[in-house]
């Protein structure tokens, strides 16, 4: 045992940039995505075009916002199956209010607040009543969907009368770059930074890693879990509003099955279902991976019946490779 006492200067100094990169949680994932990009750019001349990149990014940008909320919630030790329903709920509430004469910005604010409220209700059942996130969010998923249906009579709301400056959120561009992508990147960078650096979010890691030890460190773990649950629903609400601006409609059935996609992205990106680990950067890479696979299959015009099989296999392979990478470098 030659480990000197406190040899730990290691991380900042001696190790090289490359060594650090190799030890990073996300390296395996980046490698997989790179391989995919290289293969695809040979397979299809359209793949590496600006327009295709833009379209691919647009396809995951809004869902990516939900992935952020889910990742933070997973880190704190929770899970949320209701993300799809809550996203739809935001669309429906805002759309309904707008159709009833409320200013769309105000309507959106109210909708996001309602979604946050739904998160607070889940948080209440988890932290105060003591139920498991899985089952609470499952119930809320069903209830929120019911409210969507009730509020719309099951019919999509057509919102083409939304003012253009509102639609701009979802459809506009800043120069060549769609606003949606700008919003997405800003949120990702902000949350990635906060999660890595802020004391506030550090408590999320402590809580998810060992709730009792966190409580014994004076952290209000219930409050932390309550807040992450609420944040996740709030981000869903925000995503719902962007979807509404983008598609100009509010669909009560929007987002069915979204939860599995979102959780898969976060997990591929290194978030643990047992809490305590995960990064925003990784989760977004997970989203990118899943999305690139889907887009590539479409671009190559793979038979629909094969697509599921290929997507599932790539998902499995990605986590397996990543796991192997991570185990080796640690």
């Amino acid at each position, binding site marked *: *045992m030659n480990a000197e006492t*406190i040899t*730990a200067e290691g991380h900042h100094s001696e190790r090289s940039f490359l060594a650090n990169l190799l030890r990073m949680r996300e390296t395996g994932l980046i490698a997989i995505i790179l391989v995919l990009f290289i293969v695809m750019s040979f397979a299809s001349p359209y793949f590496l075009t600006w327009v295709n990149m833009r379209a691919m990014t647009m396809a995951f940008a809004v869902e990516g916002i939900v992935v952020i909320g889910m990742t933070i919630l997973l880190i704190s030790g929770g899970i949320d199956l209701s993300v799809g329903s809550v996203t739809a709920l935001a669309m429906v509430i805002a759309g309904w209010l707008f159709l009833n004469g409320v200013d769309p910005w105000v309507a959106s604010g109210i909708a996001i607040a309602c979604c946050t409220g739904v998160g607070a209700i889940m948080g209440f059942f988890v932290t105060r009543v003591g139920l498991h996130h899985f089952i609470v969010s499952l119930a809320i998923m069903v209830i929120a969907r019911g409210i969507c249906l009730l509020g719309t009579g099951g019919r999509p709301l057509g919102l083409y009368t939304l003012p253009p400056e509102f639609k701009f959120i979802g459809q506009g561009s800043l120069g060549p770059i769609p606003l949606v992508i700008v919003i997405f990147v800003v949120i990702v960078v902000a949350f990635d930074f906060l999660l890595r650096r802020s004391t506030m979010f550090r408590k999320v890691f402590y809580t998810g890693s060992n709730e009792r*030890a966190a409580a014994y460190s*004076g952290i209000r773990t219930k409050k932390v879990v309550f807040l992450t649950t609420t944040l996740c629903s709030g981000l869903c609400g925000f995503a719902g509003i962007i979807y509404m601006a983008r598609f100009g409609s509010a669909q009560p059935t929007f987002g069915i099955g979204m939860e599995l996609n979102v959780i898969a992205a976060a997990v591929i990106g290194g978030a643990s279902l047992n809490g305590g680990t995960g990064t925003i950067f990784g989760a977004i890479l997970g989203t990118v991976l899943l999305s690139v696979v889907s887009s590539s299959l479409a671009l190559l015009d793979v038979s629909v019946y094969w697509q599921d099989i290929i997507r599932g296999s790539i998902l499995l392979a990605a986590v397996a490779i990543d796991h192997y990478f991570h185990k080796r470098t640690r």
Partner: protein
Amino acid sequence: MLLQISGVSKSFGAVHALSGVDFGVRAGEIHALAGENGAGKSTLMNIIDGILQPDDGRILIDGKPVKIASPTEAQRLGIGFVHQEIALCDDVSVAENIFMSATNISKSFLMDYAGQRRKAGQVLARLCDIDPATRAGDLSISSQQLVEIAKALTLDCRILILDEPTAALTEKEAQLLFGIMRKLREQGIAIIYISHRMVEIFDNCDRVTVFRDGRHIVTHDVADIGPDDVVNAMVGRKIETLYPDKLTDPATDTLLSVRGLGDGARIHDVSFDLRRGEILGIAGLIGSGRSEIVKGICGLEPAPEGEIVLAGKTLRRDEYRDAIGDGMVYLSEDRKGDGVFLEMSIASNISALRPEQVAGRFGLIDRKREFAQAEALGKRLNLKCGSLWDPVSSLSGGNQQKVAIAKMLSVDPRIIFLDEPTRGVDVGAKAEIHRILRQLASEGVGIVVISSELPELIGLCDRALVVREGRISGVVAGDEMTEENIMHLASVMDAERVTANEKVGQ
């Protein structure tokens, strides 16, 4: 030689936990294994039990080389193991936990719950009075440790490994355990006994082997050497004094004053004062409520009755945060359960109590400052680790304990409550911790220590409260602080109860 280890090496990444170790145990001996924290003791035991595989070297049993691929294999070879870290199935009964191995190899199709409970009752009766039908998760840490021991005793083994079994036990249970160990020795069973308590080694063991830095240093008959030699071999230097000097002239001003503390159930009418500059001990038997009292003071568990005055100010005690805010911190006895974040880095464990301290502007954590804090405290406690960014799970038990203590010290507390602070810590580090505690006390920090190791309590503390069934049954200080006095205060009524129970049992 019943069990012979030769040339075993094991590395975890860059850390060489064991390098070419030789070690042998005879049938019918109690063989002590000593060494500093991180010397590789548990690693070797894990190899013997098949939990880890050696990188190199051989294991021979009865002179024949064996390959131990898993605990199942080890069990077949007659190896029983009480782990340093408690590992029980919380959701099932004590009886089932005790007979888990038996269930595993059982040929019978159906469970014999009644029989298991009866037999578990018999085994437990030798150690303590724990109802075998209790859910294991509902037991206190020390009771769980007893269950672990009982579990190993039911194994039909030839080699029994006990990795710091007494760390969480009080004298009474420890003595019962030693009695049992001696009986087993008479039956020809080889026992490997790991402990940081020299007294235990010299009172009960036949031979002692010392490891240092993953190497075998010496093996001696206990009769031939003294504790100092062992300590010397362990740390490579002489430990001058295990306990620092005590306070010569006790101050009279009160730092903390507890009046009539109670929770209506487990603790009643607890009142005491903590004076500036003193180290106050709390003694008592397992389950006497020592931990409860301290947790009650800190607001970690509700104790609505009574009041607590810190430096003249009555505290509100809604939650533990308030206590931390007031400068009171609590080091838990359950290190793994509520002491450390196993999967997180050492540095972020140490900063957990107040991450704001290592943050710069806007509450953003500054990794350099976090690192510097961990480095400073780690040095002070003689922490052995690879990198401070490694997860705590990669540390040896004693070093994890040091991380937990470093966490407490990180916030410059006014009062520290330490529940079994040196549990699993080696002699050298223990002396170091004692020295630090004394130094803190002299700087005006209030120190309250719960310890089940009476010599430590007596050696370290200026005064000791004795707790019995949730009440303070006496205070001892100075020359009155003897093991006899403390045991007497702690157990008068308890002794009666135990005998009564035994009668019922027969």
